[in-house]
């Protein structure tokens, strides 16, 4: 117990005793803070994870409000959805039906003005059709070989489409870069649109396609190695639009960047 010095008026606490008491109080406060720390962390982020086995159509429709979206193809016949939700956490209620899996964060949280980002990692069978829309945030799609890949960011965010093998690919955003590093299929349609950012398209060197690339503000259209492989014409004056054909011209490529640059290059083998 505490040591006490006795005075004519009774016992008086010594300096050592006061210091010990302060130390104990500080230690208790630190313990209390440490005990609260995990709870705070737990409120800041919530995690959602669930697997779905699509019956017929393997398609994914995601409408997110804000946050990153990563979709990857894998060799399983199921869709696994993992979502990390920042506080205030959004409601995530995927629905599986004959049309595929639908995750509509916008609709599920309509009227809730302030919800945190929802970051998705979704694994889908390789042959899935993927339709992704978000108001804000990056979209990445890898190793998907379905009929359609659509990535639309209504405001800002980067789009990265790599190792895609689909007949129809559409990617559009307002601000942010778009990277398409994938294969062009015969008769396929590939459209990349941005208002401000850089569009980088890297395709297999032997691909045959018709190109319409428009960059009206920057006039910066770089055809890279394809400049020598195809016949190109500059339209609209001052190189604002390039139209041309490479190989058999079977695929159709349209790139439009209203205030940014367009780069076309062969894929690295």
């Amino acid at each position, binding site marked *: 117990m505490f040591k006490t010095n006795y005075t004519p008026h009774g016992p008086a606490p010594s300096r050592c005793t006061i210091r010990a008491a302060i130390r104990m109080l500080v230690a208790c406060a630190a313990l209390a803070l440490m005990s609260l720390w995990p709870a705070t962390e737990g409120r800041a982020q919530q995690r959602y994870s669930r697997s779905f086995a699509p019956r017929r159509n393997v398609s994914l429709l995601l409408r997110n409000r804000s946050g990153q979206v990563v979709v990857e193809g894998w060799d399983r016949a199921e869709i696994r959805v993992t979502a990390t939700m920042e506080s205030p956490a959004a409601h995530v209620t995927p629905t599986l039906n004959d049309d595929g899996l639908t995750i509509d964060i916008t609709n599920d949280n309509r009227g809730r003005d302030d*919800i945190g980002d929802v970051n998705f990692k979704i694994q889908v069978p390789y042959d899935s059709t993927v339709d992704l829309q978000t108001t*804000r945030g990056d979209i990445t799609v890898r190793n998907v070989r379905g009929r359609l890949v659509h990535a639309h960011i209504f405001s800002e965010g980067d789009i990265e489409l790599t190792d895609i093998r689909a007949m129809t690919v559409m990617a559009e955003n*307002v601000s942010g870069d778009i990277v398409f590093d994938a294969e062009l299929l015969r008769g396929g349609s590939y459209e990349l649109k941005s208002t401000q950012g850089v569009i980088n398209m890297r395709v297999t060197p032997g691909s045959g396609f018709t190109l319409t690339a428009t960059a009206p503000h920057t006039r910066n259209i770089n055809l890279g190695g394809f400049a020598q492989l195809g016949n190109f014409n500059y339209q609209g004056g001052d190189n604002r639009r390039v139209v041309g054909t490479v190989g058999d011209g079977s695929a159709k490529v349209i790139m439009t960047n209203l205030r940014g640059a367009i780069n076309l290059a062969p894929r690295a083998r």
Partner: protein
Amino acid sequence: MNCEKCQEHLSDFLDGTLTGEARILLGRHLTECLVCADVRDDLGAIVSSAQAAHNYSYAPPSSRALWLRISNTIEAECAEQQQTAARVAALAADRRESFLTRTLQRRWTLTLPQLTAAVAALVVAVAAVTVFSVQSLLRPQQTAEVKAAISGAGHRVSSDQELDLLMQRIAQRKARWNPRMRDAFERNIMVIDAAVNDSLQQLDQSPHDEVSEEALDAAMRDKKELLRQFADL
């Protein structure tokens, strides 16, 4: 008794139902007034005839025979009217034919100035008809262009109204978004507006520039999508 009173009671007088002083007075008036006496005679004759015919039995008319008579009468009247109309038409045709015949058979003798004036009038008439025909042909195209312009303007107006409504909705709700969302909206609407201005400036210099028109359309489409998306939050 006066005449009016007399004629009022005359029927009773003839039937014999009028008696007393009234009958005496009426009889006296009839001797004095020739008009009333004539009326009495006529009325008496009618009454006598009616009484004589009272016992005559009329054979009820056959309805079929009656209808046949009516029908024949109507047909006869119609045939008469048709004949009259045919006669009038034949007469009018005869008049026209005679006018044409007269006009064509007339021998025209014109002096040189008259002939020149006639040719000039003919040339002017042909030119007027030609001008009128060309204008008629051009008018549908102009109308189509005007309609297209009007519909385009209408579309722009409706589009502008939609943008205004979306902007109003966003302005009401923007304060409740989280700061990251608010900043994203502000940045990107500025980017799109800059793209719109680029295209408009280019179109000011080259009004029919295809690339700028497409760029303007794309930017406006992006703007509408952005506003719809944020208004829907």
